[in-house]
């Protein structure tokens, strides 16, 4: 089971975090800080796995962003890498060649996509098509609401 997923930039700025097990805020910050520093100091030629406490950390860098996941000791690291890759593919499909700025300014979308792909630390849907379909359907739902809501709320309806 995935324990958490972090996205951070080369400067060490957190771009996204998703925790699948309950940690106290302090702990979350500590883990984030430690992992970010460790991973940023690793050289590109090094392998993508770390042992961190009782977890295994798997990370991968895409352009300026690091994707970092923690899994349990008995989990399959390569599958975790594939999870990361699949998520990047999904982001890429959704935003159309995704870049860091997309994720900064649409971070909620990035979360929504992640939530459709993973749930409770497990892969929810292995088909890219299905995930994107679900996201599109929900976006449509929002769009249908918005104009109406907008005019109503603004006293113009």
């Amino acid at each position, binding site marked *: 089971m995935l324990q958490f997923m972090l996205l951070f930039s080369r400067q060490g700025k957190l771009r996204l*975090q998703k925790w699948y097990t309950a*940690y106290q805020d302090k702990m979350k910050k500590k883990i984030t800080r430690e992992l970010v520093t460790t991973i940023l100091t690793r050289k590109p030629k090094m392998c993508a796995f770390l042992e961190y406490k009782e977890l295994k950390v798997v990370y991968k860098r895409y352009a300026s962003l690091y994707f970092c996941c923690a899994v349990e000791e008995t989990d399959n690291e390569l599958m975790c890498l594939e999870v990361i890759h699949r998520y990047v593919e999904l982001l890429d499909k959704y935003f159309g060649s995704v870049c860091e700025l997309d994720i900064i300014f649409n971070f909620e979308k990035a*979360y929504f996509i992640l*939530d459709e792909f993973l749930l*409770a630390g*497990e892969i929810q849907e292995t088909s890219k098509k299905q995930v994107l379909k*679900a996201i599109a359907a*929900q976006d449509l739902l929002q769009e249908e*609401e918005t104009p109406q809501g907008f005019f109503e709320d603004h*006293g113009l309806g």
Partner: protein
Amino acid sequence: MALRKVRNNIDRIFDKSLTDLIRGIRNNKDNEAKYIAACIDEIKHELRQDSTVVKTNAIEKLSYLQMMGYDISWASFNIIEVMASTKYTEKRIGYLTASQCFHDETDVLMLTTNMMRKDLSSTNMYDAGVALGGLACFDLSSTNMYDAGVALGGLACFVTTDLARDLANDVVTLLSSSRPYIRKRAVLLLYKIFLKYPESLRPTFPRLKEKLEDPDPGVQSAAVNVICELARKNPKNYLSLAPVFFKLMTTSSNNWMLIKIIKLFGALVPLEPRLGKKLLEPLTNLINSTSAMSLLYECINTVIAVLISVSAGTPGDHTASIQLCVQKLGVLIEDSDQNLKYLGLLAMGKILQTHPKAVQAHKDIVLACLDDKDESIRIRALDLLYGMVSKKNIMEIVRKLMSHVDGAEGSNYRDELLSRIIQICSHNNYQYITNFEWYVSVLVELTKVEGTKHGAMIAEQVQDVTVRVQSIRHFAVSQMALLIENAHLLLAGSAQHRSNVSEVLLAAAWICGEYSEHVQNVQSVLESMLKAKVSMMPGHIQSTFVQNIAKLYAVQLSQSEQEDDWDAVESLDNLMLSKLPQFEQTDNLEGQERACTLLEMVREIEKLHAQREKIAADVTALFEGELNPVAAKAQRKVPLPPGLDLDTWINEPPAESSSSESEEEPERKNGPTVRSEFAGFGAPRPFGEEAETKKKYEQPSPDEMKKMRAQRQADIESNPYYVKGDAKATAKRPTKLASRKDSDEKAVEATPLDLQSPLEIPGVVGLNKYMEQQESTLSWKKAKKEKRKKKGKKGRVSSSDDEDLPVVHQVNRADGEMPEGAKSTDDEEEGTKKKNGTGDPYKALDMDLDQPLREDERLPVAQHRVASLDLGHPAGLKSKADKKTKKSKTPKAPKAPKEEKPKKSKKSAKEVVDEPPPPPPPAPTAEPQDDMDFWLSASSAPAPPAAAEEKVSKKKSRSPEKEKKPKKSEKHHGKESKRKQRHSSTRSGEELVENAPHHLAVHDKNEYEVASGVCTPSKQTNGAVEGSATPKKEVSTPTNLPPMTSYHLLAENAFVRMTYETRVSTADANQVASAVIFANVGANEIRQIEFNVLDSLNTKMLRDPAAPQGALKVPFNLPQGVSNEHVFRFAVEAINVPQKLRGTLTFLVETENGSVPEKIDFHLKFPCVSFTVPATIGSDAFSELISSGELEASSSLQFATTDSLNDVVRNLCFHGHFT
């Protein structure tokens, strides 16, 4: 009014959107904190407004700030407001923020329960989806499917025990949603709910299992994920699912799911080696065919698990599989992808544990990985090294590692290397080391490593080797003497480095002192020790120094006295007297004490010397004797000999033995505390291998002491672990000294080199030099004869006397001496460790999923909170359950029939007869287990479909055979009475299940007799075949009723009534459990219930190992009107023979006149039919089978019937629980 509205709207246009906020933060990099503080103020203002749009916007911004590390817990309530919005957009943001910042201690969570429930049942599918997402972070979902989805997602993040309990039922309802999207999310969420609310697992599990066959692949894989997670924590409960997963594995092509399934098998395999054998072939196929590395890796891992489990159990040739794995891993390791390399090494390490030879073939690639740039890969490779090492290559490998030590940047890795070198060398008591001089050189070399943390480890090794390998002592002592003489170099570095590496000095001092007969120049070593920079050394080392100074002093003294060199004696005494006082200043109490004692002794000795008295013999007597390695636990393990009273005087005080010894005794005790194991050397051993130990302890007169010594000497001689070695070794000190002189002559000084590094000590044979010497043995030998001296340096090294010392040193490899009768406690300790293991959240999920559900096990239904309260007390409180069934008026569909039963059973007898007979599932525990056996025993499946067929056919042939047997056994008893009893027992069994024991138990017996329709499944078989009186009624049985338990009457009298049910243990196929319910039907309390049966050859009751024959005590008393259940286990040899055990129950009845012993006899029956197994063949197939004549056995019973063949067959199918 309108104006204000317009103004508000204009204000709002100037509100910051999320994008504005992000831009703002990016533009204010210099004073970010200030900017954000201002933004938070704005947000607070926005949150106070009525409009949900504004609030949502504010919350969205907060979620961004939360990610940046700002605390937004103050806005929890506002988040919930937004979650409760009717608009999907807002709800989605609300749930997102909640899932990000809520945790299980957020107090407002309790407010969300109802909202979530609403969302979960929403008509918008995404509502539900979002709710599920939330729950998944907590845990739930709406009619808009995404409403529910969102709620589920939220739940996944913030499930608390309360939420889990309250919403479990809603989530389970969603499992049957028509939309795969919702089902999928609900399935995944279940895992979170199980974790928080373990009681929900058993009632829900059947539903979850169904989802394995869901038509939607997403749902299917979600179910696989969840069961895989569950099973990895508590594998044994999921063994029965193996066939289902096996089928999935061989049919699915979804790699994600395959990985999970294979991982699941990896967890199951250690429990069931047969499963492993079955898996090998499909896994091998996958390994050969797949192109996905992750799948390949998972397969290899599981194959390794299989190999481990198989190798532990049955023998068999699996070389092919091992070869395949190792070969594939070799490919991974050689791959240019660092990740694969790393994982390859990791997996290789697992194979190493069981099949070291297979791995050794890849020695070269593994060694090559030591040069990798990536530290984690190097460390993985180091892990493997100890498996690669052999006697032949250890020198080469260690040399390589040593060169890495030099080159390593970062002290962590260097230390890691250092400890690995030592581990490799000391592995299995120096198994691979043939040349200990080499090893000592390695250790000496390692002391030069700067900033190492492992000084103590090196010290320990040097000591250990020197103690264990007698023939190395000479060499070791010479090296250590050099270390001592150059202590100032070791103590040069920083304070921290000093404290670590100075541990080596401790070992050096101890070795020089203890084996002082090997020291070449005692005088010089003694001087160096006395002149050491005391202030730079830690106290405990100073303390060791003092002790060993004393030893050296003794040696030097005896030498000088022998030569009658009174000048030397005097100067020696003076040296001691002048230098010792500095040790009295040490901060180590032990050291102070020793220094003072020694100083006083020297003063006394000096006085004697002044009168020209020779005292050396007495002084050396202090340190006589030989030290052996003693097991670490030996002292604790010394058994107290029987008859030994530690409080009585051993000898009456005046009759003390030789005065000198007793005086010295205390001194010795705190003597060489270098390592606790060595304490008490020289003294009579505290434990004996001799049988007479006891006597000796009782009266050890001086004579006997002598005898003991002699005896011990004899022991040493006969002890295979004791290194006898050459004459040098066993000889006492004086002889050793003599022989030392011989070797002295041969000894040569090494060529001292100039200082290369600050830690380079001239004369110390480092590894490189040692190797050089080895390589040029010839010139070396010549050099010896020349006895060169260079630059007047003291550094004299006795080289390896190649002629004297065998290359293969003899090593005392025993674990160390242990007292007689002491057992190794490794296992115990492991056991306790496991027990002490910290609270594991998954422990709670360890429950038997095959057991039929109890009445009280169900998910709490939201509307009836009162009922759910009972869930706190799962089993015991049966009386409450009755009320509960009445209260919960909205039970879920499948449970409905069960709940109606209590009422029905109270109806008049005739009505009962008309009732459709209750559901089949008899002893469901038995089924999966047997099912597994069939599945597994199906000779290692050729192709999966074929395996399935085979499975079916096997069952076909076996089941009828089984059916027959009970019938025969029935004939022995009077049929009439038998049937009566059967009816009554089933009847009463039902009552107990319904948890209304006492009132009903007193009812008229006649009532039970008529309840013929209510047969338990096991009996139904007989009923149908024997009587066939009521076939029609029974045919009409509904098939999908929930499981129920079936209790038979065991015995009954005026006081107690026993009913029992037979369950086949899931843990062990050869065990049967009989759950007996004891009901107190009398008016008095019953105490001290003891249950005993006469074992038959085939069936034995499993008793307390302490009392293998006696009766089993039932661990409870029965107050009036109370019933309780206890499970007795039986080991059964053959399940195809019906069993009948005679037994007795004894107990005390508490009356006003005191307690009266009572007893009751009974017969415990285990009919074969309780072991029968359901097979998945249709009734048509069954009838075909019967008519085909292929059966091994056929029924010998005949009866007239008017029913058609089909009806009869259907009857048989039903009653034998073959659906």
